[in-house]
């Protein structure tokens, strides 16, 4: 496995990505260190990169403006869920990196594809209104019916956004139910806005719903309702 001296200089995780992609990622330009690269793990991917379209950047700037008064917060997003984090240790005490590997083999699913090819997204949370908004640009590797985003890719992003909303509202929780209605197909490589909000809390149950709209707000692409259940540290 190439670590240093790779033909393309890229973050360690990307070395395991699909072969033969055209452009090198713009993020890092030095050889990856051999040891467990905490830097690579902590690269925040919810920030603009060259693959973001104009629409995506505009939306990002609009939401960044909203963070100025403190009501909205941009949520960072990383490629790996570190097995060392307190949350993981509490709920998944058996989780450990694959044996023998210097760096984690696993990647958080929506962050496991190369820049611009899969999920490009950034999430913002409003803790007063318990709302999470995700701006999402789906790349060419998320194809479903020819020219459109795969239903499963939309489901993945909805699950991620609903999950982020549930997490902020109630702590670590798992998806129990997810009900999605698809209204209009989303063209591949376009940008959409996923608006999610916490509807209700009943004990350990968190009811969260969301909709997916076009940038101009005129097209409703899909809607979802979901139930998340807060994890019991002793039970998983």
């Amino acid at each position, binding site marked *: 496995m190439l670590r240093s001296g790779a033909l393309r200089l890229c973050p360690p995780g990307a070395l*395991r*990505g*699909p*072969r033969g992609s055209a452009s090198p990622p713009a993020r890092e330009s030095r050889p990856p260190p051999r040891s467990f690269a905490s830097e690579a793990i902590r690269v925040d991917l919810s920030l603009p990169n060259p693959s973001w379209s104009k629409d995506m950047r505009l939306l990002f700037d609009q939401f960044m403006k909203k963070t100025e008064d403190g009501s909205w917060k941009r949520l960072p997003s990383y490629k790996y*869920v570190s*097995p060392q984090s307190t949350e*993981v240790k509490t*709920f*998944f005490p*058996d*989780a450990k990196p*694959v044996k023998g590997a210097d760096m984690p*083999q*696993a*990647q*958080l*699913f*929506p962050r*496991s*594809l190369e820049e611009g*090819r*899969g999920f490009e997204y950034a999430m913002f949370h409003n803790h007063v209104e318990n709302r999470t908004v995700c701006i999402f640009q789906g790349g*060419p*590797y*998320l*194809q*479903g*019916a*020819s*020219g*459109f985003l*795969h*239903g*499963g*890719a939309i*489901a*993945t*992003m*909805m*699950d*991620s956004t609903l*999950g982020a909303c549930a997490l902020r509202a109630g702590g670590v929780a*798992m*998806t*129990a*139910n*997810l*009900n*999605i*209605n*698809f209204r209009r*197909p989303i*063209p*591949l*490589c376009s940008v959409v806005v996923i608006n999610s909000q916490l509807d209700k809390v009943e004990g350990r149950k968190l009811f969260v719903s969301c909709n997916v709209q076009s940038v101009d707000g005129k097209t409703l692409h899909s809607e979802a309702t979901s139930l998340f259940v807060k994890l019991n540290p002793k039970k998983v």
Partner: protein
Amino acid sequence: MLRRGFQVAGRLSQHRVLPGVPQVLPRLILTSTFGSSTDSLVSRFCLEKTGLKDYALPNASWCPDMLSLYHELQEKTKTDGWVKLPSFKSNRDHIQGLKLPLGLAVPSDERDWRIFTRCIQVEGQGYEYVIFFHPSKKKSICLFQPGPYLEGAPGFAHGGSLAAMMDETFSKTAYLAGQGLLTVSLSIRFKHLIPVGSLAVLNVDVEKIEDQKVYMSCIAQSRDQQTVYAKCSGVFLQLQLENESPQ
């Protein structure tokens, strides 16, 4: 280039009707609303010698459970009417010579596209799966092994990856059983997490076809059926693909 009849996929250009295809054939397919029989849809879908790589074949990353169940089902393709579906890198490759109906077709650069469930091509890292379809029973079985790049909770597959696998299995089943093309709704109840690298067996049934919609249900469970990972119902909209106009 054309070798024999309509069974050859002209992969040189996806926008040309296969040269030599008799003109009567396109009209045959479009004769009555959704008149294409499952058998004709299946035979067009499962073209041999397309020159395209079929990803739904065993490789070194498949766990023993997946391999043995695969071989069991392969045997059934000879005796019990099951068909193993090929799986290409792009959905375009499955419908060569056809396109989405007017109003939905989106012309653009397709060279880079990959169907979502084949987005990660490194063996064993992403989706490893194969779908077997039974034309007369209108059922499907999908063997799914999620790799480490599909993680959500540490050591387990992301809920979205299972949702996508269910949507994809529904998609192929709906298409072959009744020309279902676009997802209308998905309703998933997650029960247990799927450990990365283990086998999940998805059983899909077509419940009914009415009002231009295909209704299906799915159970994802472990091979021994002792653990149910999730249950799902899905509805797909029937749409007739059109023939691409000759150059």
